[in-house]
């Protein structure tokens, strides 16, 4: 009866699966061992109606909609198909009169107290209760009594409203909050007919994942404040895309009405987001509708920015850059680019490195990791991390930085066999599920890793020998994945980079997942928007011949990173050329760069500042020219996530005013600089990427367009046959409400393309295998970089940790009213003993002095911090300034004097 077949596990290996046969409505069908009846039936093509069942959560069997008849030794009984597993030889009937009467009865019961206010309900038109009533329910209600009444709606958070009359008590939301998000902030109150969802007294529903409860609510009981009454589902048009709020790469359905973005919904893909989105990703997208968007190119005339034509603006930029070039190409610095598409990043990389000749190009703003290191470490996928024996966390709080990666790792630790070893200066959201949490003070990360893998002396904060021994044991237990990011922006990134490299050397089989935050920062690095790199994950030197053949020229020598570019613009550098022209690609250096004072001096010092931007910000005060760019959901293209997964972006909206996609701005600017890059559509840019970027070879438009590539393609392609897993089209209209009819990718990148994708781009010498230089090798293995020396702290100072928080004063959060209220007011966290020494308690204030600034800030005791280590969140207010005021980029760690007032 049972036999074996194979299936692909998350690590990409074929594993045997036990299958067997059972009888479903008289037909013999196959099920897998342990498979729920409802899922087995669905795979066999039989949809069993349901409300409480959700394929990504544990079943509870409470709505009773999925009852089927199971014939057993004691006759036929009605059983919840969402709760019982299919077993060999089971005889199941889903369409008998008995089943139909039960379904009909459940729907009638659900509707008796349901308000039937469908005409004014957000869910109307995409409502599983509506749809299943039509398909399985009674035609008419026999209910003549008074319905149950509640005040409607009540807010349960800033983002979510609850209409208790509409609730059918399926517990999907409460289970999501508890099981998936790990924050049981909502639960049932009362019993019987009066049972209702509620929050705990005085405690709101603050989860970063609250929007998912709205998406999975099978009725209109939970509605999202930003979307409430905004549109009717049948008026929405939608396209599948990837969220680029952070670099996890969650798949989304982008919905719009009348060229306004109305809503994002998570799409369930196995390798990445499982259908979930964080609230920032879901709701910050609304910033695209902001009235403040930049719509016209502007040039500074007589001190103020005035709208001009694109021709005039580009000519102005070309002249400004050419003036700077007179002092050599390194007098131009290009910073930013993590928000661009791969095509935009490539076009800008080619413009900067191939046309302008500068290598001082950096998509990261001093808040990331060296590009070569990221490319040189063996990369892991999210699935590999979730299925590893042990994950080492050497990063900031993932819930604040890459929220869905947090969900995936939390689930793997809670429900699976994953062990987590956390190396962090402070407690994070994963500390509670980590097997071992080792603390260190800023500057000590190298010593901690050395103690972990080489038996060196551990730093003062991590002397617990048992914990160290446990960590060593876990690291030795099997596949290890290291998540490496920036635990603190007040600590030089190269300290973490060196620690990661030490882990790579000690654990040769370990794989790495870079926890870099900005949407397409990994794509930007792949495309060469980093000093010393060229597109395709090749170094400037190894790729020189190849790209000289492709582009005509490449920079003569390695350029600067953002930190040095800004220092050179500010006049701080004694060596090398001064940076006189700054091109800022979709970044806000004053908010993003850790040393705020330096960023301001650099913008002041640069003679010519070009801002390629989507929305106004502080940068515009310094810009000599502003080029309006299209943003996510307004242009097609591709994006690359932390795994190196390339996925298609759908275009749903027409960009506002005269804003252009970034690749077009770069291409047109090149023309004004006297060179035609030959890009006439986003597709032609991709074709060139596929030809010139060795890491992307074989990932043609045809491959990306394939239905099986909807989940994205991880670059580089493996030599073995590409297994494009076909995403099973769910029969369940509720798995992702409203999305089953998504036009998967939007218009193909082929659209509007005149030339065949295989035709050589005119005017460009295309390297081929047959002639010209050899294909360069990708960056791999250890890279050499300067690791700054950290002097021991003096006994009077405290060391600063600057960590990320999800809702900060970034542009997108600020433009969305519902999120702007959620930005926390910063507080300095310190070890309670250190506060005792000053005679200060939580809620009190201290004075902080750094080499750059003095701030008076509120404090909070945090026992997770080692002695003499203090922490504050980046890019939120902190007392009378921000933590970025305290950071000096010239010193690898930030020592502060903390004094009582």
């Amino acid at each position, binding site marked *: 009866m049972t036999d074996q077949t194979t299936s692909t596990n998350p690590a990409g290996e074929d594993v045997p699966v036990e299958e067997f046969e059972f009888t479903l409505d008289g037909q013999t069908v196959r099920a897998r061992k342990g498979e729920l009846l409802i899922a087995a039936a669905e795979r066999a093509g039989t949809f069993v109606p349901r409300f409480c069942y959700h394929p990504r959560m544990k079943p*509870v*069997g*409470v*709505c*009773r*909609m999925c*009852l089927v008849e199971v014939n057993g030794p004691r006759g036929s*009984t*009605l059983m*919840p198909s969402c*709760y*019982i597993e299919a077993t060999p030889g089971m005889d199941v009937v889903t369409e008998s009169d*008995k089943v139909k*009467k*039960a379904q*009909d*009865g*459940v729907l*009638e*019961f*659900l509707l*008796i*107290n349901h308000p039937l206010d469908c005409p004014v309900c957000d869910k109307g038109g995409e409502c599983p209760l509506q749809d299943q009533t039509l398909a399985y329910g009674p035609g008419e209600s*026999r*209910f003549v*009594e*008074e319905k*149950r009444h509640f005040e409607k709606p009540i807010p349960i958070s800033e983002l979510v409203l609850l209409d208790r009359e509409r609730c*059918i*008590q399926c517990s999907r939301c409460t289970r999501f909050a508890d099981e998936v998000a790990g924050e049981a902030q909502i*639960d*049932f109150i*009362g*019993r*019987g*007919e*009066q*049972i209702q969802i509620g929050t705990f007294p005085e405690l709101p529903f603050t989860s970063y994942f609250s929007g998912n409860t709205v998406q999975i609510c099978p009725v209109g009981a939970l509605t999202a404040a930003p979307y409430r009454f905004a549109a009717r589902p049948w008026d929405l048009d939608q396209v599948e895309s990837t969220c680029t709020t952070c670099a996890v790469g969650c798949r989304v359905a982008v919905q719009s009405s009348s060229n306004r973005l109305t809503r994002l919904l998570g799409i369930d893909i196995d390798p990445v987001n499982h259908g979930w989105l964080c609230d920032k990703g879901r709701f910050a997208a609304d910033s695209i509708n902001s009235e403040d968007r930049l719509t016209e190119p502007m040039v500074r005339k007589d001190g103020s920015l005035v709208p001009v034509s694109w021709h005039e603006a580009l000519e102005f930029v070309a002249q400004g850059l050419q003036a700077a070039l007179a002092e050599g190409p390194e007098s131009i610095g290009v910073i930013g680019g993590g928000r661009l598409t791969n095509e935009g990043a490539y076009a800008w990389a080619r413009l900067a490195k191939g046309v302008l000749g500068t290598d001082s190009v950096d998509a990261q703003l001093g808040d990331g990791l060296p590009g070569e290191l990221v490319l040189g470490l063996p990369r892991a996928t999210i699935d590999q991390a979730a299925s590893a024996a042990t994950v080492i966390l050497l990063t900031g709080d993932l819930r604040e930085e890459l929220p869905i990666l947090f969900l995936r790792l939390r689930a793997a630790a809670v429900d699976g066999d994953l062990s987590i070893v956390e190396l962090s200066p402070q407690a994070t959201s994963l500390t509670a599920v980590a097997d071992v949490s080792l603390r260190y003070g800023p500057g000590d990360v190298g010593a901690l890793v050395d103690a972990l893998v080489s038996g060196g002396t551990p730093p003062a904060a991590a002397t617990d020998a048992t914990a160290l021994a446990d960590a060593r044991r876990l690291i030795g237990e099997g596949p290890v994945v290291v998540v490496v990011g920036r635990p603190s922006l007040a600590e030089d990134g190269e300290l973490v980079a060196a620690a990661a490299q030490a882990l790579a050397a000690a654990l040769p089989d370990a794989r790495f997942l870079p926890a870099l935050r900005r949407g397409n920062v990994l794509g930007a690095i792949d495309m060469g928007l980093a000093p010393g790199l060229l597109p395709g994950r090749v170094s400037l030197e190894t790729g020189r011949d190849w790209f000289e053949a492709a582009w005509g020229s490449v920079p003569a020598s390695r350029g600067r990173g953002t930190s040095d570019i800004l220092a050179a613009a500010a006049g701080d550098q004694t060596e090398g050329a001064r940076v006189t022209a700054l091109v800022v690609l979709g970044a806000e250096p004053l908010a993003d760069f850790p040393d705020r004072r330096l960023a301001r001096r650099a913008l002041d010092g640069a003679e010519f500042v070009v801002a390629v931007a989507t929305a106004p910000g502080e940068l515009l005060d310094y810009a000599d020219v502003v080029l309006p760019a299209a943003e996510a959901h307004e242009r097609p293209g591709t994006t690359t996530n932390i795994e190196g997964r390339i996925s298609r972006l759908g275009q749903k909206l027409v960009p506002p005013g005269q804003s252009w996609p970034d690749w077009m701005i770069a291409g047109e600017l090149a023309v004004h600089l006297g060179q035609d890059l030959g890009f006439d559509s986003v597709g032609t840019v991709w074709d060139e990427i596929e030809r010139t970027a060795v890491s992307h070879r074989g990932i043609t438009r045809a491959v990306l367009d394939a239905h099986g590539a909807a989940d994205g393609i991880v670059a580089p392609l493996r030599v073995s046959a590409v297994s494009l897993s076909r995403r099973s089209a769910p029969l369940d209209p509720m798995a992702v409400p409203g999305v089953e009819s998504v036009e998967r990718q939007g218009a193909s990148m082929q659209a509007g393309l005149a030339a065949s994708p295989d035709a050589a781009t005119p005017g460009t010498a295309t390297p081929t295998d047959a002639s010209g230089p050899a294909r360069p090798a990708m960056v791999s293995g250890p890279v050499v970089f300067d690791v700054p020396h950290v002097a021991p702290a003096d006994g009077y100072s405290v060391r600063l940790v600057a960590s990320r928080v999800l809702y900060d004063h970034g542009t997108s959060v600020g433009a969305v009213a519902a999120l702007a209220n959620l930005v926390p007011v910063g507080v300095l966290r310190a070890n309670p003993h250190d506060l005792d020494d000053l005679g200060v308690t939580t809620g009190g204030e201290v004075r902080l002095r750094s080499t750059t600034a003095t701030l008076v800030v509120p404090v909070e005791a945090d026992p997770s911090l080692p002695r003499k280590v203090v922490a504050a969140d980046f890019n939120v207010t902190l007392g009378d300034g921000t933590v970025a005021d305290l950071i000096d980029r010239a010193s690898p760690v930030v020592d502060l004097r903390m004094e009582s007032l």
Partner: protein
Amino acid sequence: MAVTDPPKIVTARMGHPDSHTLERYLATGGYDGLRKALTMTPEGVAAEVDAASLLGRGGAGFPAGRKWSMLRKNPVTYLVVNGDESEPATFKDHLLVERDPHQLIEGVVIAAYALQVSQVFIFLRGEFALGLERVQSALNDAYSHGAVGRDIFGSGFSVDVVLHPGAGAYICGEETALIESLEGKRGFPRIKPPFFPAAIGLYGDPTVVNNVETMSNLPWIITNGGAAFAALGGGRSTGTRLFALAGHVVNPGVFELQMVTTTFNDLINAPVLGGGIPHGRGLKAFIPGGVSAPWFGPDQIDLPLGQDEVAEAGSMLGSGSVVVMDDHTCAVRAAWRITKFFSRESCGQCTPCREGSGWLERIMERIERGQGREEDLDLLLDACDNISPGLSWPPQQTTICVLGPSIPSSITSAITMFRDEFLLHIKEGGCPYD
């Protein structure tokens, strides 16, 4: 043998004002059963209980010895005593915990020894203020006396017994909801399968759940032997049983009677028992085993008080609570009142029970208040059928636990037996008994 003759097994000490004290208990043979049990093997104790053929007294009536012997193969971690007696007209455990807490504790320790468990929880209805106080102080005394705790009576056997008050929900009398509540969660019944307590019970471990009265029988069974117990009663219903008699009788209360050899007629009408219906009125109907049981009419009054005998007649002996309705009782109002109880006490988990109970209650209220329609009778029966398909007995169910299929009993009984009375309410636009 007269109905008053049977030996008192669990109510022997009742009538003494200090029946709850350790002194009285010891003076009347207390803890002798436990001392004897500790000299036997655990298997021997279980075999004695099996020989007694003691049926569980919680309502389902599963033989306690058989339950244990099944579990002996699969070691049990916890013993949980269900004292969440909350149904209207059911008050027999109430008496046992208030009047003879040591008897319960002795039974509990005997069961713990037979099952070889070292941790017992007694889950007592939270509203039993006096019962909680008495069981707790009896537990304290029993610990001091060496009957509970470490190395009981020097036998080497140790067990801890913890008293846990319920938080006011009838549903926690359902054993899996009780377990959830014990674990500190909402009292939501678990789905069976797979959550049979014997397999996956308290904290996920195999657990035996037994009723207070079941436990209270054990000291006598061990002292006097299982055969002596089995000699009482008849058929599968051995021994004596507590019957809580309520409603229209001269002398309501709890009576310990031999099963099967006694009839409902004896219970209701015997001068020393119920004493008959007051004011010279006639019997209209009676509920034989708690308000979730289908009703019986006067022609079934001679049925014996036996589990199988009542089941064969289409109802259940259940928790042993008998409610008598005289001929001045409004059947609609009685059924409405019972439905209202279930509606308030539904846990709210399953759709048919949560929504159905409220709907049925509102229809019943409407009929009682004179706003009924003839089609409401078919509607009531069909809505009941959607909770308990087929409206058969024993019932089928569309819900997780048996609270759902308990709801239709009173309504279907009332409609079947007193259809004319419903029609009179509808025709006259009000209750004819008002």
